[in-house]
Each structure stands twice: as C-alpha cells, then as structure tokens.
C-alpha cells in the first residue's frame, strides 16, 4: 500500500452533495482489468462535452470549460474539497484509483459513503472528515483565493490553512497502516493460526457453512 504522511497541495472545490461513484468514474471504464490509467476519465461525464469510451483518445476530446477541474486556476490540484456523502453508490474501487491516478492525494468532505471511505485507505488516498460548517468556510476561502493550498499532516492529524490549523479524526489502525504503507494482507496472515483455529471450531458448530460448493 502507498504511504501517506504529509502533503501540501492546491485545493479544487467540487460543490455538489452526494457525488456518486458513477459520476467519479462512469461504468464504461470499469471494463479495464488494470488498476491504473483511470485518471483521464475521472468525472468523465462532467469533464468532457462528448461521451467517453474506454481506450478512446482523451487528448482530442472537447473539455467542458465550466467544470471546476478544467479551470486553469485549479490545474495540478491534489486535494479535493467536496460536500457530504461523497463517494456514495457502488463498491467500485476504480473511483479511488481514478482520483489517485489523476493526482488527488486527499479528499476533504463533511461525510463519506462507507465503502468509498474504506477503499480510499487501500490506495493511500486520505479521506478527511471535517465539520460541515468548517467545510463551508473552506469552500469560501478556496473560491476567494486563487492558488489556495492546504497542508495535511497525518501523524499530527492536522490541516493547516493559510489562516488556521484544524484537527481531524482518523481510525488509529488505518492511520498506522497508511503512515507506514503497510500491506493489510501480510498483516492478517500473521494471524493465520488464529484463522485456522476459528475455522476448526466453527466447523464443529455449524458444518453446513463449509459444505463445499467446489472440491477443495
């Protein structure tokens, strides 16, 4: 897993509530069997004026000048400021891969959908939950000041704006994994004996749960 420790970057404001995973990466791009290359199709329906197809030549496509990601002042942004319930909808991790591939390292919002929130940590994308009123204030500041940057420090759990330092909460286990770029699977397999012991015990109690649907 990719580590996240500290990051300073330009902020892009996406002023919509309930941004769903179909909007983040439309389904036609989910046909890829890879984990990379989704960045050019991030927010595809909003970002381009025509309809995107997998393996299309995105460089030739007409951009929607009104969409915030296309505005020159936000070019190179690496922190996405969003509204509540960000990432709702499907379980597609492609949404996180698309944000990551585009260069977004952190998303700040008043709330996130559960599966998206979970998926983010797996690719080193930091989801930061802040109070709705604070997010509102950040929206106003970002829009008012071209070149607005934030610094995020995961170890300290702080966000530093040009005028203040904010604190955010994060699950301690996830923080630990993210700071150190740890691989969950490797960590879990350290407990292989416990998993086997559970399995044996459970098999005694409820053998029907193990009735194979395939030969072992």
């Amino acid at each position: 897993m990719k580590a996240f420790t500290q990051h300073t970057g330009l902020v892009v404001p996406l002023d919509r509530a309930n941004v769903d995973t179909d909007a983040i990466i439309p389904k036609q791009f989910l046909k890829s069997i890879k984990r990379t290359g989704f960045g050019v199709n991030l927010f595809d329906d909003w970002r381009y004026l025509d309809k995107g197809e997998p393996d299309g030549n995105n460089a030739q496509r007409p951009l929607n000048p009104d969409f915030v990601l296309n505005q020159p002042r936000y070019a190179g942004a690496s922190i996405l400021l969003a509204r509540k319930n960000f990432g709702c909808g499907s379980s597609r991790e492609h949404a996180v891969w698309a944000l990551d591939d585009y260069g977004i390292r952190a998303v700040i919002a008043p709330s996130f959908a559960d599966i998206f929130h979970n998926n983010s940590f797996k690719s080193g994308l930091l989801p930061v939950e802040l109070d709705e009123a604070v997010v509102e204030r950040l929206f106003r500041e970002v829009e008012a000041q071209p070149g607005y940057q934030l610094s995020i420090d995961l170890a300290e759990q702080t966000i530093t704006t040009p005028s203040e330092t904010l604190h955010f909460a994060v699950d301690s286990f996830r923080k630990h994994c993210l700071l150190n770029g740890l691989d969950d699977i490797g960590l879990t397999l350290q407990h292989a004996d416990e998993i086997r012991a559970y399995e044996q015990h459970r098999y005694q109690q409820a053998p029907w749960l193990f009735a194979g649907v395939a030969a072992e």
Partner: protein
Amino acid sequence: MTGKTLYEKLWDAHIVRADADGTALIYIDRHLVHEVTSPQAFEGLKLAGRQPWRTSSIIAVADHNVPTTDRSQGIADPVSRLQVATLDANARDYNLTYFNMNDRRQGIVHVIGPEQGATLPGMTVVCGDSHTSTHGAFATLAMGIGTSEVEHVLATQCLLTRQMKTLQVRVEGQVGPGVTAKDIMLAIIGEIGTAGGTGYAIEFAGEAIRALSMEGRMTLCNMSIEAGARCGMVAVDDTTIEYLRGRPYAPQGELWDCAVDAWRELVSDADAVFDKVVVLDGTAIQPQVSWGTSPEMVVPVGGRVPDPNEEADPVKAEGMQRALQYMDLAPGVPISAITLDRIFIGSCTNSRIEDLRAAAAVIRGRKIAPTLKQAMVVPGSGLVKAQAEAEGLDQVFIAAGFEWREPGCSMCLAMNADRLQPGERCASTSNRNFEGRQGSGGRKHLVSPAMAAAAAIAGHFVDVRELSS
C-alpha cells in the same frame, strides 16, 4: 445483561480476533465473485504468490458485461470480452465453482446465491459489489467490499473491519394491495435519505416486513445501500426456512434439522437495544416513483414533482435544481403526466420470479403503449427465466410487445449493449437513478415491477391500482 440484536449475534459469531481499538478480523463464509471487480484482486494475489484460502467458499459468475441477446456469438465488445475471459481464466486457474455465460444457472450474482441455497442464514457474505446487502434477507451479515478487500478475503478468508451501529427500521401494519417491497423501500429511503443509514447495519422488522416473501425481503435488503447502509437484514422465520428447503447447496437430511435449529436463533432478542429506530406506518405507503437523480428523490405516484424553492436546506435545494434540469422536469408536474420512452424490468432488485409474475399480472391481455420505443424484461437468472417460461409468463410479455431477454445486469448499469440514448426517459425496476447510470444523458425513474408494467401499458406513469380495477 440486555439481549443482542441479530447483527450483534452475527458479528460476535464471526470474530477471529479483535483489537483494542475496535478493528476486528471477521471470518467470511461465502465469497461471491463477478468479472468487474475481481480481475485486479486475482492479479494482486498472483503477483504476491498467494493462493485463495478456501476455494469452496467462492462462487463466481459473469453478469455485468454479458449480452442479453443471443450468446452463441460471444461478446461483441472486445473490452467486455476480455473482462469475462479474465474471469474464465481465473476460475479455471483456481478451480472455482463458476457459472459461465452459457451455464443455465448463470445470472446476476445476487440472484443466483440465494437461488442455489449458497446464501444460508448465519453466514457472512461478501462480494465486490455494493448490492451484496441483498443476501441479508436470509439473516446473514452481507456486505459489498472493494477490490482490495476482495483480494484480502481471497488470501485470508477474513475481512478487516469495525463493528457498525444498529438501526432498526420497523414498518408497522400491512401495506395495501398493489404496494410492494420496492415501494416500502423507496418510501424508507425517501424518509431517512441516502445517507440515513451510513455507518449502520439495518434490520428491517415489523408486520409489513414479516408478511413479505423472500423475494420481497431481498428487494428490501438490496436497496439498503441506497439508504447508505452497507448491510441490511431480516430475521429468520418460517418463510426463510421454507425458501431454502431443497435448494442445491442447502444442507440435507440430519444436517438440515441441525441447521434449522441454529437458524431459529437468528432473530434480535426481545430486549435488544438498537442505536436508532425508525418507524413507518405501512398502511400509509403508496406506490412510489423517483423523480430525480438520487434514490431519495421519490414521491407517491399520485404526487407531483417537488419545488426546490420550498426546500429550506440550500445544498439540498441546489441538488434538486440540478436533478430537475438533468431529468428535464418542472416543479409541480403531476407524476402521472411523465411520459416514457423505454421500460426496463430487471436488475438484482427486481428480476426474480415473483417480480416477473407481478408484472405479468398487470400486462396479461394488454398491449404496451405505441409511443414506447422499447420495453424489455431481463430475468435475474437462467433458472428464473426457465421458471417464467414454464409458467407461460414469457408469452404474456411477448404478446404485449415486450422483449424477453437472457439474464444479466443489462440496462441496470448499461455496461453491455443495453442502454438509454441521451434524453431518453425510462421506467426502471432497478435501484439507482444517478445521472448517466443507464446510459449517458439517460433519464431513469425507479419503480416496482407492477408499476413499470402499468407504465408500459399507459406510456406514462399511472397508479397500478387504478389500472387493475
């Protein structure tokens, strides 16, 4: 000591280890796999030189990309074809139980699990798909996971997660005739909102829920995710047990009796305490129609498109405004005045035999409106399709002017060739009405199968209860 909720019983029974900070490793009994969210997980497994922990827990099926027309020619789109071929190869390499595109048991992953008896009460069920919540109808702890988690479950048979809070949604009283599980669920989402269940495991209870068939309970649990909850569930009762009896992967003989005894415990204790309780009056629920681009944007069929100017919350009002623009609707328009281009009956929400029966009952002896471009039925699985054909339902649909298709996800998310053209309007029995969900620029209204059937006959939305009288 107070009693436990159903969710707490399921959770406690699956803890392999729990850390002081609340993170727990829980054991996974059933792992369902489809072609869209698994290739990168299998690739990760291979790259790390790991093997699946317990292949007998896995059932794989191709459903999202498969054509719903004649399959003898294979898949035309090369990108879709590669994705399905990748699942074929992984199933072969790891010796998985796999219902390939031409297997008669093939179908939507959330339809085939229960149909095969592979989803059993007391299980933990995961799949790289948010509608895994469907399986909670069988008193399972069933949740959608991301691709990295798919890889984690493949490699370790466990999921690293935290306990959720509990929300009981109780629907008191009986719903009226013509009101279905879909209407109940849309009404619940309209009430609590698409983030109302975030962080919670929902248990559906109350008289109206107990009266539902397993198909209806699956529809309900299916859309828990549209209410923001990763999982939804219904306690075990006779309906659950009768549904499972004799299914291919359900236990048999003596083991069946032991299992049934254990399953009877899978109910919330009378003195269990939920973190939150929401109560709805079932007798007041009307057939629902969504008007916007979020599943919470619903109104009863007799209602009108709402006015954003009457919404106090500015962020919400802004969302409504945008939705009206996308849907090309004006505030105050009666729902029954909305005319349609296409009708889609299908998806893991509403493509089971009972759904097809309900739609066919409305359609029988009638014809679809000549103004429609298309009306299609996509059964949830090959076995649902066969059953419907044995009952003659296919002929009812075909005689009315519907297309009768092969099973799969189809127009629910338009990854295959079935999709809306920009600006087209569709009555759909699926679960999400997000922008572009059924095709870029397409406009989609969520309804029950009976309501979709009624709309097909009328060419616009109509209260199914008026049509059948």
